[in-house]
């Protein structure tokens, strides 16, 4: 099945453990994360395309006792594909990369991404040495993924196929300094 993106994000963050930090990729994933409920533990990205997974890696390595979930789109992941190789070498136990894959560049007008033409991010993640790789196909698996964001003992990669819908924008704080300082304070609070 394919999921409605806002509902999928809400499921992933529904029973969010207090030590779970989220790095949503720029554009739709940032709007989705904000729509699921504004939270000091969200490092909203309004730019830095291709950098979400590496921001997650830096945070996960710095604080092994917190959990980090990068939740990003297929286009953003494709721009930083090499970072999956870098993460496959580092393999922090507390990092999850979740890709909302609709095969489209949503923010620029729904143009096709490579994943529509046979590029398989699941195969890429496996090939990069990421040990736990999930292709989410059912509601039950999506709920299982939500649980794993708080408990997985290995680096996790998951692909969540989403519908090509375009829900209304939900815009969080835009000032990068405020977003950064909020997250830093939240990290200090839980660790």
């Amino acid at each position: 099945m394919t999921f409605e993106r806002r509902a999928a994000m809400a499921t992933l963050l529904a029973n969010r453990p207090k030590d779970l930090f989220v790095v949503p990729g720029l554009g739709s994933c940032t709007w989705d994360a904000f729509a699921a409920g504004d939270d000091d533990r969200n490092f909203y990205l309004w730019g830095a395309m291709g950098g979400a997974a590496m921001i997650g890696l830096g945070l996960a390595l710095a604080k092994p006792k917190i959990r980090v979930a990068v939740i990003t789109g297929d286009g953003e992941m494709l721009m930083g594909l090499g970072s999956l190789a870098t993460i496959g070498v580092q393999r922090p136990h507390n990092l999850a990369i979740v890709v909302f894959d609709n095969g489209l560049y949503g923010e620029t007008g729904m143009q096709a991404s490579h994943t529509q033409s046979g590029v398989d991010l699941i195969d890429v993640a496996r090939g990069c040495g990421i040990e736990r790789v999930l292709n989410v196909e059912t509601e039950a698996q999506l709920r299982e993924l939500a649980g794993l964001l708080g408990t997985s003992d290995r680096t996790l990669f998951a692909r969540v196929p989403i519908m090509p819908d375009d829900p209304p924008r939900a815009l969080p704080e835009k000032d990068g300094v405020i977003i950064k300082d909020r997250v830093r304070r939240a990290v200090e609070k839980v660790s």
Partner: protein
Amino acid sequence: MSAPVQDTAVTWPDELFDVLKRADIRQVGYVPDAGHSRLIARCKADPEIRDVVLTTEEEGIALAAGAWLGGQRSALLMQSSGVGNCINMLSLIRACRFPMLMLVTMRGEWEEFNPWQVPMGSIVEPALKLCDTSVTKVETPDQVAPAAQNAVQLAFGGDRAAAVLLSQKLIGRKVWVK
């Protein structure tokens, strides 16, 4: 292709390492580089430093931002060609005012034999300055540690990007060993 030639009389890479240690740098991102080989080896050997080998230098900018969110200081080691790969990602540093420490070994200048290194090498300094990065260029060994210490202070004291450019004059002509 070529193995770096270690000269025991050369101490500036060790001095750079000491500056990183004194600054409590805990993550070091790098793309393998002959000019930085000794510093990279020192970082890899230190249990308190997580060395993160990258596929492209821009990954190191995002890594540094993430590390800082988690309360750790980091540094990015790269060659001048890598600076070009970082340009857009440096927006993250400027937009959020992250500290960003970069140590750059220069190519494309002193005794360069490869003309393909010249286009990027020749614009590193103005390109970084356009990205609101403080730039200090050093050409002699005695300037290295003070310049690095200054960059540490500018980056972590001022929440901004600071780079030290290590001249090819300092590193020497690339020696090919086959």
